């Protein structure tokens, strides 16, 4: 079997940076993404046909365009596999991929997993109603299809991403009635000194706030959505002020809307790392279970690195630097750059990351997931969406002896659906932890099985040749 030098999974900021860096350092690079173009979620570009219609973009998006252009200039040297998803990791650094032409195994000397993160929504009454979606989902509707998710939109949850999406939806012509941020203003002030550690990012944050003000979109700190109501789809959201633990207090009120964008931050996509048997650790503030890595982002599995949000959520700027470091380290490990060159490039990047970490950890503390959020779910609120299992059914299952993952799955079927527990497990683990007086880390994580993502039987009927596929566009 042909072994590629370096295979990178994911062409967002981390993956693109790793690819460009490693390619310039003399490695043969294979870059895989399930989308048709590079950029990932954050730098997602409109298809050419829609280019004229796309929403106004900010500074960060310009940077994304630059990165995409840079990679474009290297495209003759990079094996770029768009519209290709990785559905499994197999021993000896073999990745199983599928595209619309069939499946194949791609073996690599070095792998960088840059799979990004998905959005976290804590279950609450009405969260499965049509019209309730994640901010990222609304964002990609606007960005790639130029479709507005609704006309009267409320944005809620936690984190700076809400502000970005609010501005984009407004610019695209929607009425954004407000942004509810669970964190309180005083939480933000408490960590303000640490935020001065990276003035550029602080300025970016201020820019988001100004955009909101200009658009007359009210931002309510210390508020949350306690439930969504509607018969066929969402018609109203009930909102309330909350305390530092995310528990509603005071009078609740109702607001009429047709769309609710709600997200409480991000959970790293670690399925491939888990499948590769990388040692994992639980870090609540950066999204839960993440692979343990060294300074070059190498996991406990030799030659497998994790960069960007997939290794702990920290945003695009950190992701890009991590990707660069991982790309360099892969080249260094395979001997295409010498020790001196490597060290000279590594040191300043490591320093920059240390500085960013102060800023990031302040953000993580401001926007941490509050324990009270889970209490919003009523007994009949669906927790596992795939199998439609309610909170009450899960709690009865725990009561019945389902105090560990496998038993609870067998008894209740929670986590038995196609998402393999990706959506419900953070909430289910907290329910078990509460009942058993354990920590979420002690409860453990769900086991990941192939396939990751969607894979049909027909995808496995044609095995492609083992030669590198050359995709020219």
């Amino acid at each position, binding site marked *: 079997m042909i072994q590629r030098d370096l295979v990178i999974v994911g062409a967002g900021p981390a993956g693109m940076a790793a690819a460009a860096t490693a390619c310039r350092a003399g490695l043969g690079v294979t870059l895989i993404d399930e989308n048709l173009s590079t950029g990932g979620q954050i730098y997602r570009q409109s298809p050419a046909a829609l280019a004229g219609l796309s929403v106004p973009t900010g500074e960060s998006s310009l940077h994304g365009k630059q990165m995409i252009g840079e990679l474009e200039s290297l495209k003759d040297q990079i094996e770029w596999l768009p519209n290709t998803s990785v559905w499994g990791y197999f021993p000896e650094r073999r990745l199983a991929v599928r595209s619309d032409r069939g499946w194949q195994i791609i073996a690599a000397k070095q792998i960088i997993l840059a799979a990004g993160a998905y959005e976290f929504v804590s279950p609450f009454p009405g969260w499965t109603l049509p019209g309730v979606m994640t901010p990222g989902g609304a964002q990609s509707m606007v960005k790639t299809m130029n479709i507005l998710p609704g006309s009267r939109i409320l944005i809620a949850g936690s984190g700076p991403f809400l502000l970005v999406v609010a501005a984009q939806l407004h610019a695209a012509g929607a009425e954004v009635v407000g942004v509810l941020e669970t964190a309180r203003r005083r939480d933000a002030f408490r960590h303000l000194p640490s935020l001065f550690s990276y003035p550029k990012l602080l300025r970016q944050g201020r820019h988001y706030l100004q955009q909101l003000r200009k658009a007359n979109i009210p931002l309510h700190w210390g508020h949350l959505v306690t439930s969504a109501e509607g018969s066929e789809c969402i018609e109203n959201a009930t909102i309330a002020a909350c305390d530092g633990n995310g528990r509603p207090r005071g009078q609740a009120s109702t607001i009429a809307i047709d769309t609710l964008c709600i997200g409480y931050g991000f959970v790293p996509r670690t399925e491939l790392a888990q499948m590769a048997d990388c040692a994992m650790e639980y870090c609540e503030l950066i999204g839960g279970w993440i692979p343990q890595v060294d300074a070059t982002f190498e996991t406990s599995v030799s030659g497998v690195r994790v960069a960007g949000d997939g290794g702990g959520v920290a945003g695009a700027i950190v992701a890009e630097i991590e990707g660069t470091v991982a790309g360099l380290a892969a080249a260094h490990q395979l001997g295409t750059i010498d020790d001196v060159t490597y060290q000279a490039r590594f040191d300043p990047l490591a320093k920059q990351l240390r500085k960013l970490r102060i800023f990031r950890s302040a953000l993580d503390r401001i926007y941490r997931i509050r324990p009270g959020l889970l209490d919003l779910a009523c007994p009949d609120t669906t927790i596992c969406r795939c199998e439609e299992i309610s909170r009450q059914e899960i709690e009865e299952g725990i009561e019945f002896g389902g105090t560990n993952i496998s038993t609870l799955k067998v008894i209740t079927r929670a986590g038995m659906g196609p998402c393999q527990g990706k959506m419900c497990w953070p909430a289910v683990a907290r329910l078990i932890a509460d009942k058993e007086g354990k920590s979420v880390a002690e409860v453990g994580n769900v086991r990941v099985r192939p396939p990751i993502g969607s894979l049909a039987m*027909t995808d496995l009927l044609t095995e492609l040749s083992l030669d590198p596929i050359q995709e020219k566009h």
Partner: protein
Amino acid sequence: MAKTAEVIVVGGGVIGSAVTFELARRSVDVLLIDKTLPGRATSASAGGLWPVGEAVGLGCGIIHHQSHSKSGVLNDELLLPGFFRDFLAQSNSYFPELAAELKEFGGVDIEYEPGAGLMFLYFNEEEKQFVQLVADSLPQENNLEVLSALEAKEIEPQLTGDLLGAARLADEHQVNPMLLAEGFKRAAIALGAEFRHETKAAELCREGDKIVGVQVEEERFSCKTVVNAAGAWAGNLAETAKIRLPIFPVRGQVVLTQTLPHVLNACLSNSGCYILQKKHGEVLIGSTTENAGFDVSVTPEAITHLCNAAVRTVPCLRHVGIKRVWSGLRPGTQDELPILGPMENISGYMNATGGFRTGIVASPLTGRIVAQQITDQELDFPIETFLASRFKRTAAETR
């Protein structure tokens, strides 16, 4: 404080749980200890209740034969002994009543699903002749019908047109294997058994020719009898007390599809895979039989092989999504029969393992006769042919 019990059962898979249930039912003071290891066979079982089908090789047997036999010729080597077929058939006959009992005592629905039976599908002359050989070898009461392709398609409209014919065993159905184990366990607890999960038996405590307890981390649990129901790991457990038990892990990989509307009426098998639709709508496709030690990984080769074999048999599965793929380790034995009952010259010890590919269907009767043996009751089925001593004898005879 040191724990004591009359009987300690090691292993909470379907067999250990069944034994615990049957002991609790007989008012024995029993403790079940279990450490869920990745790859326990119960979790990767299809839950097929195919007593005759498995005994004559028309379930997983033919797949096993195809990948392990040197000749690859389908012959009477695939037929397991008649007494084993009787054992499985008797065990299978308990299911309707058992389903009701487990629901009543433990509150678990084991999803016992009578359907259109087990159909072995054949695609060529050799397979057809093998079916004939099986049919001739079976006593009348086993009810094997040989069907034309048309008749098979009448029962199972989604079958491929390439079919030559089918052999149908109308009384062979399915359960949910994990709920079956859970059901036995819950019922046992309700009847007074004690259960400790996440508890690993480090070793068996032996004094002279007597097993006196189980060492669990720092603690020693003492008992009058230990039941070794540790499945594929039973040999390792026995080894800690210098007991040689010829059990080896046989890996099986299975593929599960997304939830589908009702598409299959029967459990289907052919020489490449078996296919059955579970109660919640997923279609389960099994299974490889591989000697891979205790490695529980899955392989792209096996996954694609199973998917190809399934689509060839039921073409409408082509565009169906795959939900997950995983593997389990069957407790294998050389003669494909379980190892039950005491060991020669050792007291306080009882085997309940070696279920290989028939552990689920064999669990009700296995639970009974092991419990009956421990409580000195009359046995519902003779245990002699399942004793571990048969291996020593065979070795001596060949010498």
